[in-house]
């Protein structure tokens, strides 16, 4: 795949340690700059794979692929610096990039994300009202006393959302400070696997890979971590460490395998990851029906409980479920941020994500990047598997991954594939999940409403023009052409 680029780079590695250091130094002095600006200013001895038009949002349509190739080739041998083009800064169509729609979805602005959540909540509120008994009852005499109807609608929606808030952030009726903030602890607990798996998906997105396989990666990690946890009996500390390592290796293996197959055979990662999800699930079900994974003397497909030495300690004592995995998730978010924005490897990932052909021409080993990014993505999802078996569940069942692998995709989308955006989106979805319980108990609102709201968020993020139209943010009085769909996409790119 990368053979043709080799002649330009006899050393085969355009990013030697010197370049690393050099770039790192620049970044240190230039922290407030975006990568793009930094890279444009400081040419660090790497081929220039980027074209000026990509830097301006209202630039004319990009030139065709041929020009791109020529530009890359022209600069490849020279001493021109790299231009890190974060996927989030891409605007409109990318030459040679087949997945422009995909990219547009991932690169909506922060405003759109916030508005999408808001809009989804409003629609969710209307749905709640629509299914509410009181609203139905008052609607039958709407004309006789319309205020009843309107207040019923208002009550239904606000009651549910107040319950959602009380179940996820702060419950004024809780016993003492501890009880009042218990919901927040629950939110953080549920957010933990969402954040790490979301980061895995986000990282792959940034490298241009659609990683649908977090589910399978969580499962494989869960299997290995759980087995290490209940079958081995080791001292405190070492045991948990080994569980952690087993999970990370499991996830990395399952993700890396997809990367390998894609790099070597060209098989599409979406197909591969979906199929790998099934393989993982059926492997898990098979294993749970073998004596090695079953409780002695029982025939239900449920594993023994993990040793106490193998589970994450609870951060604030046993009345909350919040465990060490959450602190780890924060650390991992910092790590992913560093990896993407400050490391050579991360630069290569983003370059491959921005334009694999240009990256290849510039001497980046695309195959290696693909395998590596999938392995790291798998390892991140694997941490979610560990958070499940060693954090909350403490056993292995066939529901070990719950729906985290798929929710992670939504989380990464909402977080616009940035590490901290993903972190925030994970917290939000954790809050939805935690609050849904209270909403169901206090108001009888079905938990499905939360799933609908989650789905609506994805829908709106995928259609930024719709969101802007609803909130009247679309630029008006433009020439007909600029009001078209493709151009509105161009205006979304700038926020990164």
């Amino acid at each position, binding site marked *: 795949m990368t053979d043709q680029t080799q002649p330009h780079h006899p050393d085969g590695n355009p990013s030697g340690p010197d370049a690393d250091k050099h770039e790192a130094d620049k970044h240190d002095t230039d922290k407030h700059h975006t990568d793009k600006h930094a890279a444009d200013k400081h040419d660090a001895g790497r081929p220039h794979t980027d074209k000026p038009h990509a830097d301006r949002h209202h630039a004319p349509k990009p030139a065709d692929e041929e020009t791109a190739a020529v530009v890359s080739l022209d600069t490849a041998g020279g001493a021109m610096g790299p231009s890190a083009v974060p996927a989030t800064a891409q605007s409109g169509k990318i030459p040679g990039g087949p997945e422009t729609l995909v990219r547009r979805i991932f690169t909506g602005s922060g405003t759109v994300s916030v508005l999408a959540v808001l809009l989804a909540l409003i629609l969710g509120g209307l749905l709640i009202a629509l299914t509410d008994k009181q609203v139905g009852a008052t*609607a039958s005499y709407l004309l006789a006393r319309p205020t009843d109807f309107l207040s019923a609608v208002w009550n239904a929606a606000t009651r549910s959302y107040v319950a959602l808030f009380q179940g996820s952030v702060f419950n004024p009726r809780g016993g003492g400070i501890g009880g009042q903030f218990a919901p927040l602890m629950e939110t953080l607990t*549920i957010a933990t696997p969402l954040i790490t798996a979301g980061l895995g998906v986000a990282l792959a997105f940034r490298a241009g890979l659609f990683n649908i396989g977090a589910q399978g990666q969580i499962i494989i990690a869960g299997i290995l971590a759980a087995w290490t946890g209940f079958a081995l009996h080791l001292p405190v500390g070492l045991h948990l460490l080994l569980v952690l390592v087993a999970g990370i290796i499991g996830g990395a293996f399952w993700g890396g395998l997809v990367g390998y197959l894609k790099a070597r055979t060209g098989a599409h990662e979406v197909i591969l990851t979906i199929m790998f999800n099934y393989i993982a699930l059926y492997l898990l079900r098979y294993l749970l029906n073998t004596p090695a994974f079953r409780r002695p*003397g029982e025939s*239900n497909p449920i594993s023994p409980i993990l040793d106490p030495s193998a589970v994450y300690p609870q951060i604030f004592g046993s009345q909350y479920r919040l465990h060490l995995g959450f602190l780890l998730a924060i650390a991992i978010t910092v790590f992913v941020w560093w990896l993407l924005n400050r490391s050579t490897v991360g630069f290569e990932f983003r370059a491959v994500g921005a334009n694999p052909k240009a990256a290849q021409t510039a001497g980046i080993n695309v195959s290696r990047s693909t395998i590596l990014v999938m392995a790291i993505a798998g390892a991140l999802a694997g941490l979610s598997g560990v958070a499940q078996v060693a954090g909350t569940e403490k056993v292995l069942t066939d529901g070990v991954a719950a*729906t985290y692998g798929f929710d992670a995709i939504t989380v990464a989308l909402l977080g616009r594939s940035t590490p901290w955006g993903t972190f925030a989106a994970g917290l939000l979805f954790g809050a939805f999940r935690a609050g849904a319980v209270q909403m169901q108990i206090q108001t009888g609102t079905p938990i499905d409403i939360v799933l609908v709201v989650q789905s609506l968020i994805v829908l709106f993020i995928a259609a930024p023009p719709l969101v802007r139209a609803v909130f009247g943010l679309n630029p008006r009085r433009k020439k007909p052409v600029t009001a078209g769909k493709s151009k509105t996409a161009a205006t979304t790119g700038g926020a990164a």
Partner: protein
Amino acid sequence: MKISLRANVKRGSLAGVASVGAAALLLTGCGPAPQAGSPSATASDYTGCIVSDSGGFDDQSFNQSSYEGLKKSEKDLGIKVNQVESKTNNDFEPNLRAMVSAGCNLTITVGFLLGDATKAQAAANADKHFAIIDVGYDKPIANVKPIIYDTAQAAFMAGYLAAASTKTGTVATFGGIKLPTVTIFMDGYADGVKYYNEKKGKSVKLLGWDKAKQDGSFTDDFEKQDKGKQLTQNFLDQGADIVMPVAGPVGKGAGAALKEAKAAGKDVKLIWVDSDGFLTAPDYKDIMLSSVMKQMGSAVETVVKEDKDGKFTSEPYVGTLANDGVQLAPFHDFDSAVPADVKSELDQIKKDIVDGKLKVESAASPKA
């Protein structure tokens, strides 16, 4: 031009939708306003709660039956009811914690997957009562009442009935997921067929389950009806004419395949599980020979009533033929098709099982 036209169309269609909506409201909204009055007050302070497993309360299986039992108690006993559905295994513990803090007197949990979570919450909240469906604990827990079923007893009768009714000499069964609560049906069914063969010196064949090996045909979930249809089709091709699907809603797939075969002129029959399929799956009335029923609703009602009256015990409730916790459903439309001597033999089998003369054993039988 183009754009403005499009905008007009959009506005037009929006206005259209709005006016239709308004018209609908006008049509439905012309009733009289009610007089102010007090809503019907709940008579009791007792709160009964239920936590489903990931099947949800509309699974046409044990979640639904248990939920309906609790809803019936709400009406009959005037208790308050809280329900919360689990979407994934992750929801169990938060849901249970929430039920405890919502002040539930008795919390019913459904399914073996909730076993650990229920045990943990019961230990942490000794003053609260719990009941769990389909789980028996090795060591009884003082505030948890297990509700379990010796389904093999009723399935045995179904197996005998199927063997006595088959025209082709081959009957079949398949399961959803290989869980003890599923295989117990298949074990009983297999034994019933075997018992018939021994008694009558026949050799009716059973497809889909090998009791000795504890292995057979499964659809691997409780959702994909087409897989149930495909399996049933295979059984029909191998000569079976009576099928018992133990797969919740996937049983409908089996029903669909059998209906097609019937339309093609074959004489085929279906045996439903959990509830009386003649009533709960009326689409397949004309092929419904009988059903193996687990009376979960009435068990839940009984446990709630006992607890409300202060008679809670951790003694497991075991549904058997003796206490009508499990039953073979009436034949309904097939009543005339089942010969009288088969009916009396089934009555005798039931009597023998109740008296303990006939032992029906399954690896999945409740350890009581």
